[in-house]
Structure formats: structure tokens, C-alpha cells
């Protein structure tokens, strides 16, 4: 059994690890593209168009309490973000999808996960995807 203090320390360690690690892992798309840089860039561009747009829809679904919408959008997005190895984003989408089935879930519960998800996605775009697209 973990004490509250131990659990808190563990949470802080995980948060620190998330901070340090890259959001994206390009191993999968590199394997998929067989080294074709144009294809990899095309997928990154699609991510930049598609994911922020879908996150906006997800946020609207959360605010309006549209649980079916949350489930559907989160479910679809999971596969898209996994293409660029953004597993920390995918995990949070999965959590939103699961939460949407709960009767007792509150809007704040969704919003808390959404906020983490949005931060990770912003970091992925600004620090990993855009530099790869324009500096490579």
C-alpha cells in the first residue's frame, strides 16, 4: 500500500518525466514511410491541420456535455496521434473516451484531462513537428 506522500512523489516523478520526454516518437512513421521524407512531411502537415481542429470539436463537446461526441472524437483521434507516436496524447484521449461512459463524471474531470492533452499537443507541434517540417 502506498501512502499519500509516496503517491504524490510518484505523481511528481511521472509529471517530471513527461516534461522531459519528447511527445512524439517517429519510429513508427519512419518505418511506415520506409525513409520517404516527403510522405513523413505530408503526414505531419495533416496532423497540423487535423488534430487542432478535432481538439476544438472535442473541447466544444466537453463544454456542451455531449458525451457521444467526446467518445467519437477521442476514439478517432487516438489512431491519428498514434501515427506520430504521441502516446501520451493517445493515453489521455483513451481516458476521455472511457470517462464518457461514466454516469457520474463531471465536466471538470474531462477538462482537466483535456488541458493536459492540449499542453502536450501544443508542445509536440511547437517543439517537435514544426521544426521538423521547416528545418529539415
Amino acid at each position: 500500500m502506498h501512502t499519500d506522500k509516496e503517491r504524490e512523489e510518484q505523481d511528481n516523478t511521472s509529471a517530471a518525466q513527461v516534461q522531459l520526454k519528447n511527445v512524439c516518437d517517429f519510429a513508427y512513421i519512419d518505418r511506415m514511410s520506409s525513409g520517404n521524407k516527403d510522405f513523413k512531411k505530408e503526414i505531419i502537415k495533416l496532423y497540423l491541420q487535423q488534430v487542432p481542429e478535432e481538439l476544438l470539436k472535442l473541447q466544444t463537446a466537453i463544454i456542451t456535455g455531449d458525451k457521444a461526441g467526446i467518445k467519437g472524437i477521442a476514439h478517432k483521434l487516438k489512431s491519428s496521434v498514434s501515427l506520430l507516436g504521441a502516446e501520451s496524447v493517445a493515453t489521455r484521449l483513451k481516458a476521455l473516451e472511457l470517462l464518457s461512459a461514466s454516469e457520474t463524471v463531471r465536466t471538470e474531470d474531462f477538462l482537466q484531462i483535456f488541458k493536459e492533452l492540449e499542453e502536450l499537443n501544443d508542445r509536440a507541434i511547437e517543439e517537435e513537428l514544426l521544426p521538423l517540417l521547416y528545418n529539415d
Partner: protein
Amino acid sequence: MRILVVEDDEMILRTLEFRLKKDGYEVTAARTGKEALEKLKSNTFDLVITDLMLPFVTGMEVLSFAKATFTDLPVIVLSGSDEEGTIMDAFKLGADDFIAKPFSPGELTLRVKRLLVRHTARG
């Protein structure tokens, strides 16, 4: 060999298209279930790969139509890895195989090839 790919997620669709073309197949894309039904009615395909969660006309409906109209046409369904119930439903409707997203390039190549070989041998 001509393959119809039905997927409303552009990133997944382009990835499937890229890999299948690399493997030498002719690929036709449909982004909605309705578009898939229209293409199935007006073209001849050797294989269909369809997502299940599509807007308006679902992947299950595409699968049902394909199996009812072209009994020998193999259909692979795409699904999330956590959709066991849905996959079972798809098999009941006649799906020949399923590929869980995210799929590996090798797995896609093998599953497609296996079904096409079986389909060609029958025909």
C-alpha cells in the same frame, strides 16, 4: 489488383494508400461510407479495406453491402485494438480479416497478400 480503401481519417487513409501503392496495388480511396457504396456499385475491386466508424453510412453497412452483392469479394475491417465486440460483429457479417490500428507495414502487406492469393485461387 485493385483495392478500395474506406477511411474518413485523412492521416490513416494516406498511410494505407502509401503502403498499398508501395506494394504495387492500385488504390481507390473513399472517405465516407456513402462514397464507398457508390464506388462499389460502379467499379470492380479485388479487395476492400474499411474502417468501421464512418459518418452516416457505417463501415458495417459497407461490409454488409459488399458481402451481399459480391459474395467472393474479400473485406478487411480496420478497428481500434480495443474494439473486440465490434470486431466480432464484423466477423458475423462476413468480414474476412481485421487489422487493428495502428498497424505495422509488414502486417498490412501480409494480410492483404494472403487474402488476395486466396481470392485469386478461388476465382
